[in-house]
């Protein structure tokens, strides 16, 4: 009976102190398991690629769709903002009943009288506090001439602060002044479009154009109105935004008068309109909608027929924002569904992978892997797949809107939230859809798993 027999003949090799080792090597362990995951993804190249593709498409779709809808809503909002968020727009509209009655009967054509009047505008200005300015305009459709060239355009007789009220910029020259307004001067500001049509070569500044029998001196050129369906009511013109030129309000009144005549198929049609449109500027943006309501009441009291229209860009802006939000929710939902499908793809592949690697799971379990080691291994694999898909998807999702903008000229806006959101969702999908297959892997009976062919 000696110690030699009792002592284990095989000396345990540096068996590490468990407690210390466990904590210290958690990271190493994680790294190893990750490497194992990457290896197995790599060894099933095509399958992994197809799986990743589902996530790539989902993530890219989320980002791209949000960028496009964000861009569209930005564009729409910009248009309303251009009209001025502090503005209320009024315009005259020919009432349907009047039109009918005038066409009946005999005798010389009678002038139809309708629309906003100077008195309306005065009442509004005087009775509602908080209105900083009212810019009233007359719009008459005329042929304008320069040498041999002519163009049919809207001649807008308006106030000096018209451009500022609508956020329009002058390209060159200037708008007319108070003095010119007072003098009923024959000066004109052309829109880009008209300037290009009448003066294809020359700089129109300092030259003159002819309207009816009068000559007007061109003093400025203004950028074209890209969005306005106001004031297009002159003689029932089409809905297309007409090209415009601008003359002082006073000049319009004295040169063209208040009654205009139009040739129609049935004869002459005459109508008398004092004002075609008015821009009412409100001091405080918060009261715009309220002021709009009061104006509506005032006009309703003063007009027998509804021969006017009221437009509040701010209200339209709010509507646009609301519908933009709705669009985004729809777009997000569609893209979200494709992400979900991608996630189901991951689950499918992971389940296949678990079945295929049953034997490996058995071996690992026999060699000391705990259930949680197996779960971690498969979960990491799922997360790697979805994260790789997420990264590629984010890159694509940011690139696609650029391509759309470049080729179709659509405004697209990639907000930083979208890629972040899409990526986190994709990573989450990896976890959520990876858990079930991983649990199945871990819950296998080691004996059964080892016997699996």
């Amino acid at each position, binding site marked *: 009976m000696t110690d030699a*027999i009792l002592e*284990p*003949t095989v000396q345990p090799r*540096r*068996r590490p102190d468990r407690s210390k080792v466990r904590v210290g090597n958690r990271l190493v362990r994680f790294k190893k398991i990750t490497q194992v995951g990457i290896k197995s993804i790599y060894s099933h190249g095509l399958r992994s690629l197809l799986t990743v593709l589902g996530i790539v498409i989902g993530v890219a779709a989320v980002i791209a769709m949000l960028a496009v809808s964000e861009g569209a809503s930005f564009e729409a909002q910009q248009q309303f903002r251009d009209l001025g968020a502090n503005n209320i727009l009024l315009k005259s509209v020919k009432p349907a009943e009047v039109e009918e009655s005038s066409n009946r009967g005999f005798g010389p054509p009678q002038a139809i009288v309708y629309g906003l009047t100077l008195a309306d505008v005065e009442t509004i200005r005087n009775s509602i506090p908080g209105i900083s300015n009212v810019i009233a305009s007359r719009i008459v459709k005329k042929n304008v001439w320069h040498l041999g060239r002519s163009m049919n355009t809207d001649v807008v007789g308006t106030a000096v602060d018209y451009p500022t009220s609508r956020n329009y910029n002058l390209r060159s020259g200037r708008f007319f002044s108070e003095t010119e307004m007072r003098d009923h001067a024959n000066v004109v500001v052309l829109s880009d479009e008209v300037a290009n049509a009448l003066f294809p070569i020359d700089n129109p500044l300092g030259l003159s154009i002819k309207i009816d029998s009068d000559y007007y001196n061109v003093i400025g050129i203004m950028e074209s109105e890209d969005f306005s369906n106001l004031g297009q009511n002159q003689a029932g013109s089409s809905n297309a935004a007409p090209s415009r030129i601008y003359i002082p309000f006073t000049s319009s009144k004295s040169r063209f008068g208040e009654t205009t005549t139009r040739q129609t198929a049935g004869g002459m049609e005459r109508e008398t309109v004092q004002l075609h449109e008015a821009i009412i500027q409100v001091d405080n943006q918060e009261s715009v909608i309220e002021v709009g309501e009061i104006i509506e009441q005032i006009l309703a009291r003063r007009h027998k027929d509804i021969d006017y229209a009221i437009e509040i860009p701010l209200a339209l802006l709010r509507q646009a924002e609301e519908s933009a939000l709705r669009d985004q929710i729809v777009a997000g939902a569609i893209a979200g569904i494709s992400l979900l499908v991608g996630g189901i793809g991951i689950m499918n592949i992971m389940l296949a992978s678990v079945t295929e690697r049953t034997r490996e799971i058995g071996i690992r379990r026999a*060699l000391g*892997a705990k259930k*949680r080691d197996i779960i971690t291994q498969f979960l990491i694999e799922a997360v790697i797949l979805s994260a790789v898909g997420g990264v590629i998807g984010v890159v694509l999702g940011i690139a696609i809107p650029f391509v759309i903008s470049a080729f179709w000229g659509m405004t697209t806006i990639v907000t930083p939230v979208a890629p972040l959101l899409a990526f986190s969702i994709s990573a989450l999908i990896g976890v959520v859809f990876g858990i079930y297959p991983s649990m199945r892997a871990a819950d296998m009976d080691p004996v059964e798993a080892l016997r699996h062919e």
Partner: protein
Amino acid sequence: MTSLEPNPATGIGNTPADIDSVGQSVVASLKDIRKTYYMGALAVEVLHGISLDFYEGEYVSIMGPSGCGKSTLMNILGCLDKPTEGTYYLGGEDTSEMDDDELSTIRGARLGFIFQSYNLIQQLNVLENIEMPLFYQGYSEQDCHEIAMGLVERVGLDDRIDHKPFELSGGQQQRVAIARALAVDPLIILADEPTGNLDTKSGAEILDLFDELNQQGKTLIMITHSDELAERSPRWVRMLDGKVESDDRRNS
């Protein structure tokens, strides 16, 4: 007496029961092990009360015809399966009370497995396969590498460390598996028909390696259906119909 001193590294000597009358320490002890499988309402008892003790440094063969329950016994010895009744002490610890995590740990730390079909992981190279049990035991990367390098040399495959299992012959694969089984320096090495898939020459090499390991003091339990192989070892247990039929030792 020194023999009663507990050895924390192996767990041997923790209880007096581990020391048998001869004075050799018991590393594994099966006491009246029964295993019943349930197939629906049908209960089939595969092991009908098996009691066996395995001693430190022993080389034991367990043999018997197929269906005699030797594989089931092997799974129980390997802590892959739990007995329906009876107790199994491994290194002085009662495994019947252990949960899944503890069983995993004891498999990884105390047992080395050698399978008939090698069971190497195909995506991993030779070195990584050997490192795997060490990794699950929480050895540092450096230790894993050092130990695995030592073992790969010992089984004579140090020129193949980067090879994947499918690039190796059966005999070479089985040697990798042996190296892997030795990695954690287990109490017992369990070999299930280790030469079953090998040609005679490779099989003989593997058996020589087993002899060598046993001479170095490793405890080996080998399952085989061949009497010839079984009688190579100093002790052989013959099983029949879920019972131990005979338990013989060679008198050397």
